[in-house]
């Protein structure tokens, strides 16, 4: 009851204080960036960040969360209509979404995507919001060692889910942790890695790292590549939406249930963003769906599973951020940065006073409204949204660079920060070129100070005893999960190799 009461208060807060405008702007921006291949959800949030500097914390986070939410959905439009996936998580849409469209069922495919986004968004948000208070209470019992273990789990999960090359992910993570140590240390006041440069004495703001790596670095990567042919965008298309009947929805209830549970639970795992969730949801359908043999030829299940998985992951990421203060993805790392820029530290203490609790539940309420809003907007404006593809890539690159530079400049009115953007942009480009994942670095930078302070405090209070990180139920569990997360890629890779060698033997 308390949750419902707080949610209703939050909704009133949004409507009465005019935050609805920020919500709608966020939804539109999220749709626009996710439709455009190469722009991406994270970059959309990065580019919107400077506009939040002069806002209060609630509208800022509402806008950024709306970008995140609608960003996991709108990319399916271009996947279904033009065979161009706006976001990596929309790739599975090509297999069944575009094939439905090719079979003359465009409106039905768009309808299934909309219904899936709606169900995935609402159910996972409701589930995770219900977990917020228990999670917050649990987090209040955390000692510094528990916090370190929780952060450690976050970092190891990101590394384990970063792809085939775990070495590259580790190196990225360690570089991120090192970047976070630059400047004056908070316990001893000692200067570290400043090289007598006044620019580095106050540390490297992680906004600079985020914007540089995700914004400027991405532009550098794109500018060197062959542009995509968007010639089909000008062709006349039907963009109306046909909703499935209740019977049709009931017929695929197992898919709906599986994907919603999977999306929500995977969303909690740090590093398992919309893309991983979307692919795993599709993979599970491929194995367990009644019509698995026909999957890929244009079945609703092939749209429903990845779309629900993508949208459900948003709530899964947002609630740990708000209740524990631990971001699990690039997008939530930037939202954390937006909180900190406003002097608010997300975490269990955010649920301790009535005022801050209202802030949290206003954001939760906005997530429900964002789901409804993005479905309404998409129903009305698909044709307008996909026109974003007409913007020349060169113009888009210039706009992104300007937003990246000015957004960082606006933070501290410092040209030096703009120089750092160029440095991190070049690093981001090098990471892309040599296939080092960026997310571990970014999370290392964001979580580095928390990891270090909890590590130092634990070591000082336990007389440098390393076992302090293991001998407790909470930290012991987190550490065991961390170990499992580290072993996961090793086991996965060896199983895959064994499978491929076995299949090769069979074919021989």
């Amino acid at each position, binding site marked *: 009851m308390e949750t419902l009461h707080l949610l209703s208060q939050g909704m009133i807060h949004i409507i009465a204080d005019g935050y609805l405008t920020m919500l709608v702007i966020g939804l539109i921006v999220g749709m626009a960036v996710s439709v455009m291949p190469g722009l991406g959800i*994270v970059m959309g949030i990065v580019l919107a960040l400077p506009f939040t500097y002069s806002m209060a914390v609630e509208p800022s986070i509402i806008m950024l969360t709306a970008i995140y939410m609608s960003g996991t959905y709108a990319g399916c439009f271009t996947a279904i209509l033009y065979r*161009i996936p706006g976001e990596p998580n929309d790739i599975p849409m090509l297999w069944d979404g575009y094939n439905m469209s090719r079979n003359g069922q465009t409106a039905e495919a768009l309808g299934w995507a909309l219904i899936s986004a709606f169900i995935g968004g609402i159910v996972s948000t409701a589930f995770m919001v219900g977990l917020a208070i228990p999670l917050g209470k649990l987090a209040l019992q955390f000692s510094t060692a528990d916090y370190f273990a929780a952060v450690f789990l976050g970092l190891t999960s990101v590394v384990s889910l970063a792809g085939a090359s775990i070495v*590259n992910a580790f190196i990225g993570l360690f570089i991120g942790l*090192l970047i976070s140590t630059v400047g004056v240390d908070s316990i001893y006041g*000692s200067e*570290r890695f400043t090289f007598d440069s006044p620019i580095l004495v106050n540390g490297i703001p992680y906004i600079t790292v985020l914007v540089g790596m995700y914004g400027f670095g991405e532009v550098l990567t794109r*500018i060197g590549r062959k542009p995509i042919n968007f010639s089909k965008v000008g062709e006349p298309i039907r963009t109306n939406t046909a909703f499935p009947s209740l019977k049709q929805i009931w017929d695929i209830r197992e898919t709906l249930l599986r994907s919603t549970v999977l999306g929500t639970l995977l969303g909690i795992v740090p590093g398992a963003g919309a893309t*991983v969730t979307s692919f795993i949801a599709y993979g599970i359908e491929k194995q367990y769906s009644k019509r698995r043999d026909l999957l890929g030829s244009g079945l609703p299940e092939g749209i429903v599973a990845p779309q629900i998985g993508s949208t459900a992951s948003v709530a899964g990421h947002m609630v740990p951020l708000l209740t524990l203060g631990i971001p699990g993805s690039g997008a939530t790392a930037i939202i954390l940065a937006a909180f900190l820029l406003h002097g608010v530290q997300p975490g269990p203490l955010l649920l301790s006073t009535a005022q801050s609790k209202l802030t949290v539940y206003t954001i939760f309420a906005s997530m429900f409204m964002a789901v409804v809003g993005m479905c309404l907007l998409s129903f009305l404006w698909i044709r307008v949204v996909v026109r974003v593809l007409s913007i020349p890539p060169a113009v888009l690159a210039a706009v992104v660079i300007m937003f990246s530079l000015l957004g960082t400049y606006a933070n501290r009115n410092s040209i030096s920060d703009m120089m750092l953007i160029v440095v991190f942009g070049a690093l981001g480009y090098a990471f892309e070129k040599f*296939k080092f994942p960026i997310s571990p670095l970014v999370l290392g930078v964001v979580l580095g100070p928390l990891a270090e302070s909890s590590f130092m405090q634990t070591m000082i209070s336990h007389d440098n005893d390393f076992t302090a990180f293991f001998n407790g139920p909470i930290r012991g569990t987190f550490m065991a999960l961390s170990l499992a997360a580290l072993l996961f890629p090793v086991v996965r890779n060896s199983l895959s190799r064994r499978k491929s060698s076995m299949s090769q033997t069979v074919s021989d």
Partner: protein
Amino acid sequence: MPHLGYIREVDPDPMSAPPQHEAPIAPAHDADPERQTVRRPLRTRLLAGAPYIITVVAAVLLLTKARQFEFDRVPGRIGPDAWPKLVLLLTIMAGVWGILKTFLFDDASSNGVGKQADLTASDAGQPDVAYIDEPEIHPARVWAALAGTLAYLWILHYLGFFISTFIFLAFVIYTGGYRRFTWLFFISLFGSLFFMTIFVRVVYVSLPIGIEPFSTVSLALLAILNL
């Protein structure tokens, strides 16, 4: 997860699409048995190993630096150098691991150098989306954009925001391959005015006005735009 850069159109034919034949969550290179048997040339392996070598060298240098941190040491208590040293040691270990994988085991999964683009997606954390990255074909454009941005930051102080941004936008759009010059001119002009207005009016940032005589132009524009 972030972007994946340009995304190429994918063959939607269900008979050729990956989900028809294999679980989509399997990393793309795992189904490539040749990966373990075909060794890349030494030059390619050197290029592939360069990031790890640089990482190890940089980490060793920083470790030396970390030993010189100045602070009041308390007996029996770890200092501000403990955490960075721990991270640096782990970095060195990871770098050595990468070097061994590249040179001894010739594991092309460590990075994509010398390997087809089909490794890129899974390495970036996107399982089985092997075909979505386009290869780089204009490296000169990348360097031009980097140099142009540095030049922009340098001239910003002298020419002021409006004039520098106009030149910079035109440069980046041209570098990006856009060749409709009339549009290029107007996009740059209105783009710089747009950014000036947005960042002064909405974000409340004071932008550089430059030195004389450029500052006169900047001030006149600010007055005209009522900013």
